[in-house]
Structure formats: C-alpha cells, structure tokens
C-alpha cells in the first residue's frame, strides 16, 4: 500500500506537534526532566499517529520500512547508549518516535496476520493434529533433503555466523573498569577517528617543490579522521561512480555511433580483477611522472600528483564505476521499448522522458549497482595500501594483522563491527529494493528491437571528446598492467619503450621457486575451495529451490547470499577471533606463530564461504531451469530422491554448476582481504595476492614487473573463464558485483 501525503496529513502533523509541545510544557512544569518527557512523548506521539491510521512505513517505497527502523535503532543505540550529546543526540530523540512507530506497526502487522491466519483456519473448521503436521513435514523431506538442509545450515552457522558473532563479542571486550561500550565510544569520539575541526594549515591541495626543482601540485584530500574518511570516501566514490555509470550506460544502450562495440568492450575492462597492480598504475598515471603531468608541465609549468585520500577515491572510482555501468546498462536494455514509446506518444521527450520513464524503470538495477560500489569502496584494500593511506577503516583493520605482535585488538573488532553495520545497511536496502526489480521487464515475449538513435553532431562531439577518452582512461590501469608486465613501460614514469619489451618476467613466475610457490598455493587453495563451495552450493540451492519450509528455507537463502554484504575484512577478523578462541593451542590458531599455524585450512574455508554467493547463484539458476514436474516424473517412476538429484537433475544442469565453479574459482584466486590478513600470518602458505601486496609494502619498485605479470596471469584466467562460460557453456559471465 502506498499513500501520498495530502494537506490533511500536514494539518494533522502540525496538530500532533502542537500537542506534544503543550504536553512538554506541562511536564516541565511538573519538574520532570526534559529528556524523560521527550522519551515519554516519543512513545505517545508514535501511538497517537498509529491510532490515527498513519504509518510512515507505508508512505514511501516499501524498502524504507525495515531500513529506517534499523537505521534508527542502531543510531539510537550508538548515540544514546554511548552517551553522546549535542546534535546527534537531538537527532536520535527525533528518530525515536519513528522507531517506536515502526516497531509497534511491525508487531501490529504481525499480530494481525497471525490473527487472520488463525481466524481463517478456524473458519476452515479443521483441527490438524500435531502428529499429522509433523508427519506431513517429514514426508516432504527425504533423508537427503534433511542432510542438505541441516548440513548447509550448520556449515553457514559455524563458518559464517559464529565468526562474525565472535568478532562482535570481542568488540565489547574492554579494559577493566570501563563501560562495555568503551571501544565504540573511542571510535565515535577519539580524534583519530572523528575530527571535525581541521588545522588551518591543512589544505585539500598544495604546491610542493621536488629535489630536482620541479614544482608539483599535490592533491591529497582532507583528513577528517578514520571513520569519516571512510564514509566520505565511500560516498564520493559511490556518487561519482553512479553518475558516470548511468551516463556511459545510457549513451551505449541508446545511441549508435561508429566504434561503439569497441567502446562497450573497453568499458568492462576495469572489471578484470588485478589486485594492487591496477591501483599502482593509477598512482603512476597521476604522479609527477605520469602523462597528465606532462600536459600540465607543458601548459602551466607544474606537474600534478594525486595522492593519499584523493588518490584512493580516484583509483576506486576508476575500478568500480563499471559495476554501476553494467547494472544500469542491463536495466536500460531490459526496458520494454513500448514503455518509452508510449511516453513519447503522449508527448514526453528528451530529458523529461528520461527522468519520468526511463530512469525510474532502470532505478532498481542502478541502485543495486551503486550500493555494491559503496560496500566495495568501504572494504577495498588495494587502493589504500598502494597509496599508503592509513587513515581509512579498511587499512586500520588490515594493519592490525601485520603488527609486530600479530594480536588483533578489541578496538579493531569494534571497527570491524562498524564496517559490517554500514555494509549491512546497504545490503538490506538492496534486498528489499531489488525485490521490485522485476518491473523493469513487465512485458515478456520475444526479443524486441532496441531503441537506438543516431547521434547528432553535438552528441558525437560529446561522445568522442568526453566519453571515449573517459572509457579509454578507465581502462588504462589494466592496459598499464600488461605494458608493465612486458617491461614496455618502466615501473616509474610513462614512456613507451618497445625496445625493452621482454617476456622474462613471465618466465620468472614459473622458474623462480620463491615466486612460483604463491601461484601454486593460490591454485591449490582455489581448487579446494571451489570444490567445497560447489558442494555447499548444490546442497543449499537444491534445498532453497525445492523444500518450502517456513522460516528454514528463507533463512538458508539469506545466509547463502549474505557473504556478499559482509566485507572481507570482517570475515578475516571473525576468522581470526573464531580460530584463536575455538581452536586455541592447535595449529589452526592464527596466534600460534608463523611456523605452526596452518593457514591453508583457514583460507580454504574462508574462501569457499566468502565466494559462496557467486556459486550458489549459478547453481540456483540451474535448479530453477528444471521444472519440478521433471523431478516428480522420475519420483513417480520409482526413482528415490537421491537418484533423482544425482541421476537426472545434476547431469542436466551441469553447465550451470561448472559455470558457478569457474566464476567461484576466479573470485577466489583474486581474493584479497583474507589472503593478506590471515594468509599473512603464515607467509610461506600465503597466496598470490599476499605476494603482490608484499612487493608494494616494501616501498621499493623492484619486482613490480613480476607482480604485473601475475596480474596478466590473472587476466588470462579471467579471459579463459569468460570463454568457457560464455562460449562453451552458453551461460552469462557474472562480473564481480553484477
């Protein structure tokens, strides 16, 4: 149900506020503290509104229901329990009635639907005996189904939920004598985390003079403290990426111009995962040695360098905007042309048509993409490590693993919790919002001819002068990786030296045992993790698509998707606390030292859980392809459930399973967060990404080409995967986040 706000509602709201204020006046006269009376009035206001039939949860988009309620709840928890005063507290008091309203409304709805349920079952006039109920449920569940559900749930609870809870538990671990929320107080108040007042000397950009006398404009960005930096960075990255993504997607989806196919392919190049090395190329591109500096030096006499926070934001925008682009592109493509034609038929055109019909229809897809960018930006480690930007949450969490002691402090756990909270908020928003996603494809029935226009000269000018350079530019990091790997460009600077081209760095990958060990580790772990993840995915996807048990199957479904929303660093923290508590004193304990700790076991499990959603999605799509009647026909002819699954269904959807496994393999072999944290605790068992990271950590440029050739190797893996999935298995290749 959706209501719009009318004039009566405004009067009513005014009236309510008036009552609240009069009562407040009265309470204060009775010498009840202001605060207490506000609390009381909050509840009163909420109940009054509800009785009058107002429910703000149902006024706007449905996703706001749970979203605002949860935001208010957590916000109030932090602000009020942590005794923070001032404007945040006032805002919390303002949110309080909304929270009360939402929760009362929620419970009222629940109670009503329960009532309805019982009423109708009473009207049915049937009393179903408990034994009969149990018998019905157990009848539906063959032993193998039970095994699938119970095993799937157990694995997810033990290796996903418990570690995260463990981290939460440690987040509340405080020195003696301090209140339980002390760690959070620090995160929200300490000047390292939140600094709203900057020094006068701090500037967004500054001129510097190098040793060789060159003048450089250094753009650094401003430091508002770890927490705010992360948030501001994520917000900027998300909004710029969203804007660029929509722009590029719209032009490529709706306009035809010479060279479009190539541009379309180039636009997805940034989605090839090359951990660290692409951010490194961005850093070089925007350094005093880069191409941009050559231009500015020629024009203004000074070079330019984008560094620190600004550098991180730039690198992330370049890496992540294609996520929005691809989501938006497929949304635009999926809009039934007759929708737009109808609008044109009624007189809408141009920008009006776009804002009134096209954008709203494509919005769910776009929003899904942007929120993923938000989560990725928050948890990204590549750019912060390359730019050595320590004043970000992700770097803070990471650096706690590489400290001398190798012991992660509770404060970091609290930081992990805050990061998880932010990511989870985004995820909840997507889940409830993307539920509406289907409306982009209202009419089905065959392919339609896409609406495509030729560009006018203004449009062509825009495309060739702005869009094409932009897309080529964002593809530069990956191109740079390849050039670096063949030593065509030097590790510093940007001069093309074809005469230096060599493939010797690739040989080194395989010939130098100190380097090859990492490749071997990655391949072994990825294969093991993929086998594990595929097995779990089959169990979960089958149970979710076939068993319809209230509460249990939706839970399984959510648990299997949730790793998408949990930042890798949170998983790393969770695993750290989980294994150091539960497996204390065994070789699985991360604190047992770099010779005892068996990192590979922990890594394989972490990988398979983290990348599970990608595999599940593919396998699930397979099960959905199989009409249930196909299965029932086999059961009916006398085949048992396990025989049906292994004999009829799995062979039938093999392509989906293999595609899922291949995608899983790619994302596992390029995984960063747990690899360089947990893996870093046992360097000789660490994977490729750890080696890539360690080259840059040193601060020298030796080995950059070797790392670049590793990046190229990963690109080759991804190309091979795309070939396998798209050409051989005729499936869709899911780029990360799409």
């Amino acid at each position, binding site marked *: 149900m959706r209501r719009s706000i009318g004039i009566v509602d405004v009067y009513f709201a005014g009236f309510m506020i008036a009552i609240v204020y009069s009562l407040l006046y009265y309470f204060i006269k009775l010498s009840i503290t202001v605060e207490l009376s506000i609390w009381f009035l909050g509840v009163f206001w909420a109940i009054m509104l509800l009785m009058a039939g107002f429910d703000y949860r149902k006024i706007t988009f449905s996703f706001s229901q749970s979203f605002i309620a949860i935001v208010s709840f957590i916000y109030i928890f932090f602000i009020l329990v942590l005794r923070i005063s001032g404007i945040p507290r006032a805002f919390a008091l303002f949110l309080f009635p909304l929270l009360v309203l939402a929760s009362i409304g929620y419970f009222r709805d629940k109670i009503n639907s329960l009532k309805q349920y019982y009423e109708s*079952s009473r009207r049915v006039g049937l009393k179903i005996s408990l034994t009969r109920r149990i018998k019905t449920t157990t009848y539906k569940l063959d032993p193998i189904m039970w095994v699938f559900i119970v095993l799937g749930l157990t694995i997810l609870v033990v290796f996903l939920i418990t570690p995260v809870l463990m981290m939460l538990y440690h987040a509340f671990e405080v020195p003696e004598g301090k209140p339980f929320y002390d760690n959070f107080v620090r995160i929200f108040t300490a000047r390292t985390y939140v600094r709203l007042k900057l020094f006068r000397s701090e500037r967004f950009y500054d001129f510097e003079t190098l040793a060789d006398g060159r003048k450089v404009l250094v753009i650094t960005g401003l430091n508002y403290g770890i927490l705010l930096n992360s948030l501001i960075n994520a917000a900027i990255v998300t909004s710029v990426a969203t804007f660029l993504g929509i722009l590029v997607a719209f032009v490529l989806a709706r306009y035809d111009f010479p060279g479009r196919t190539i541009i379309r392919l180039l636009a997805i190049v940034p989605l090839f995962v090359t951990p660290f090395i692409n951010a490194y190329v961005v850093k070089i591109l925007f350094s005093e040695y880069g191409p941009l500096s050559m231009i500015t030096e020629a024009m203004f006499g000074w070079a330019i360098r984008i560094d620190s926070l600004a550098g991180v934001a730039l690198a992330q925008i370049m890496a992540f905007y294609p996520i929005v682009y691809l989501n938006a592109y497929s949304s635009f493509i999926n809009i039934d042309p007759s929708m737009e034609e109808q609008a044109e038929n009624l007189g809408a055109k141009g920008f009006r048509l776009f804002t009134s019909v096209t954008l709203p229809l494509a919005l769910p897809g776009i929003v899904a993409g942007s929120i993923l960018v938000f989560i990725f930006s928050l948890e990204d480690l590549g750019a912060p490590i390359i730019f050595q930007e320590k004043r970000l949450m992700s770097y803070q969490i990471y650096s706690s693993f590489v400290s001398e002691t190798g012991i992660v402090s509770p404060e970091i756990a609290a930081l992990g919790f805050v990061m998880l909270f932010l990511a989870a908020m985004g995820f909840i928003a997507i889940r409830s919002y993307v539920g509406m996603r289907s409306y982009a494809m209202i009419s089905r029935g065959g392919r339609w001819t896409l609406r495509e226009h030729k560009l006018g000269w203004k449009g062509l000018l825009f495309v060739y002068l702005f869009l094409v350079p932009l897309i080529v530019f964002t593809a530069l990091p990956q191109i740079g990786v390849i050039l670096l790997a063949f030593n065509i460009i030097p590790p510093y600077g940007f001069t093309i030296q074809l005469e230096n081209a060599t493939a010797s760095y690739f040989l080194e990958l395989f010939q130098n045992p100190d380097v090859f060990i990492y490749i071997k580790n990655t391949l072994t772990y990825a294969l093991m993790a993929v086998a594990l993840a595929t097995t779990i995915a089959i169990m979960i996807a089958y149970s979710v698509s076939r068993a319809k048990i209230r509460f249990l199957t939706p839970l399984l479904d959510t648990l299997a998707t949730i790793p998408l929303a949990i930042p890798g660093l949170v998983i790393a923290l969770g695993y750290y606390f989980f294994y150091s508590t539960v497996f204390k004193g065994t070789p699985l304990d991360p604190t047992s030292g770099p010779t005892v700790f068996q990192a590979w076991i922990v890594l394989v499990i972490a990988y398979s859980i983290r990348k599970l959603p990608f595999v599940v999605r593919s396998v699930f799509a397979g099960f959905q392809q199989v009409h249930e009647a196909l299965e029932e026909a086999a*059961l009916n*002819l006398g085949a048992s459930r396990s*025989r049906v699954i292994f004999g009829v269904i799995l062979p039938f959807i093999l392509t989906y399973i293999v595609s899922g496994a291949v995608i899983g393999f790619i994302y596992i072999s390029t995984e960063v967060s747990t690899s360089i944290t947990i893996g870093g605790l046992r360097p000789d068992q660490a994977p490729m990404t750890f080696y890539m990271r360690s080259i840059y950590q040193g601060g020298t440029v030796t080995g950059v080409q070797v790392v670049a050739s590793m990046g190229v190797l990963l690109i080759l893996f991804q190309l091979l995967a795309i070939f396998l999935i798209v050409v051989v298995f005729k499936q869709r290749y899911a780029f990360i986040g799409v």
Partner: protein
Amino acid sequence: MTRVRLENVTKVYGSVIAVNKVSFEVESGELFTLLGPSGCGKTTTLRIIAGFEVPEHGRVFFDDEDVTYLKPYRRNTAMVFQNYALWPHMTVFDNIAYGLRIKKKKLGLTEEEIKKRVKWALELMKLDGLENRYPLQLSGGQQQRVALARALVVEPRVLLLDEPLSNLDAKLRIEMREEIKKLQKKLGITTIYVTHDQVEAMSISDKIAVMNQGKLLQYGTPHEVYFRPQNLFVADFLGRSNILYGVVSEKQEEYVAVHIPELDMDIIGVPIKQDLPKKVAVVIRPEIVELIDDRKPLIHRDNILEGRVDIAMFQGEKIEARVNVGKTSLVVYLPNTLNIISGMNIKILLPKKNIIIIPTEET
C-alpha cells in the same frame, strides 16, 4: 488391477483448503475423471494420490493398503504431467526406459527385456522409429505419446493423467482422447484423469467426479451427472443450462410445479429428490426445447412459452437462439433445418420429463 479409495481427504495450504473432505472410490479398471474449474483442487487430489502431497486429514487406499504416507517412488503409480515432463537431455528411448531401469533389480529385468518392453510401448503409442530423437525434436502430439508410453511401460497399478490434452490443438485433442479411451479399455488399467473440459470428461470417463472449491460435489456416470445434477454448480458446469428460480407451488406424483416470477407462470419438471424445500431452481437444457408448429395439434398443454427471438446464430449442426420470454430470456438449440431469424415470434415447449428441479439453499 487396483481399486483406489479416498477417505475424507483434506489438504490445507496455510489458510486455504485446497481439498475439503473428499471421498470416492475408483473401481479397478475404471476410467475416473476429476472435473472442475481451475483451482478447484482436482490437481491437488491427483498429486495426493501420486504421493507428491500428503493430506492433513483422511487416508488414501490402493486396494486395502493404506498408502497415505507411502513415498511417491514406492507407490507404483504412473503420472502423465500436463507439460509431459520429458527429460530434454534423454532420448525418447531413454525417457521411456527410465522407469524400467530404476526398477531393474526389483523386477529382475535384463537390458534385453527392457528393450523389448520399450519397443512394445513404442509400438503401442505408434512411436516406432522415433526412439533416438530428443523430446524437443518432437511435435506436441508425439511428446504426449512419449509421456504416455513412459507411464504405461512400467505397468503401473494406477495411471494418473493431469490435464494431458490441454497443450494440444483442438483436433489432435479429440483424436488423442479417443485413443486414450481405447488404450485404457484395452489394458484395463485403473486410470484417474484430471480435466477442466467437461466435453472431454464426459466423452472419456466411466465415472466423473465434479469438484468445486475443494469439495467433491457429485460423482457418477457421465449420464447421471449430466441428467441428474445434484446441485446448481454441477448443472451449470456440465453442458449449458438456463436456470430459473422459483417457489414450489404444487407436487404431483413424479412431477413438481414451480412458480417462476420472471415468467409469471408455473413450470413443471422432475425433482432430483423427494423432499424439496420451498425455494428451488429449474434447470432447462437448451437442447430439450421444442419448437411448436401452430399448424399441428398440441399434445402437451404444460410448459408452453411464447417469445421473441432476440438473436439467432446458425452454428452448422444447430441454431442457437436467445428467446425473450417475459422478463427473462432462454438459450435454446433448434434444428438447423428451420428458418429462424431475429425478431421472429415463436412458441416453444419445454418437455417436463427433461426439466430438472434442484433445491437452491445450499449455495
């Protein structure tokens, strides 16, 4: 051969009763049809018999064995699904042989015997020569035959057909229903057939059960159900009916006179039971109406109506006319030899032995 008996079977989904206390018995070798509009619970009932659903109340018996909680793969029923459910990755031969291969050990079959039986099924369904094709390479009718062959080859205790003809075109449907009927009689296999098509149901079945909103309203031979509908839903659902409401005015030995306010006269007909309540409905099938030729002397005096033809539609084998009588109108079928046009005034007779009188309160 197997008898199938349902006792008070009830299936509840949340707060919806899909099947409400349904009981019936299917004699061995009988072709039994569950007929009803979509959503009436007929497919659910069939799925309960197959074992894909379990009832919350009541029991299912095959002969005298209680199979309520027997797993579908132990029931030895064979179902033909509405969409045929042929495995697209198996050839026609493999599809048909599947059930036999599953039961290979239990039945002690050799691959040779399986081949023989599949061949028998292929011949039976006139599918010779198609065994190496894949289902997607077959026409709809052929797929239907494969699905039937797959079901028959395992020699099931009960054959279950879930709207098997609904995906075929009209002409093929008529051919197939004849064929199914012949086959079923030839093999003598107990068959339960689900359809929403009343013509199909009546032409094919030994017995029909009419269902609506989860309830079994009536069951009997097609003849019984058509000519002695026990309630208005059945009367309306099977064939076409004119239904007029009225009050019982007079009872004779086997006839009852009902006063119809809309016609302002009495209609005499046969009651479906002796103790009729006051308020009743009169069911007049359009094909029983006779046209009165004024030039010939009248034999009957009752149930004569005069009216004006509102619209007359020539339909080949008959003329369908809507006749305006009093405050209402009746649909009548008249012989195609007559010259009936809109606007004509005609006199019609409703033979009282063919008029059914049904109590109304229950709905």
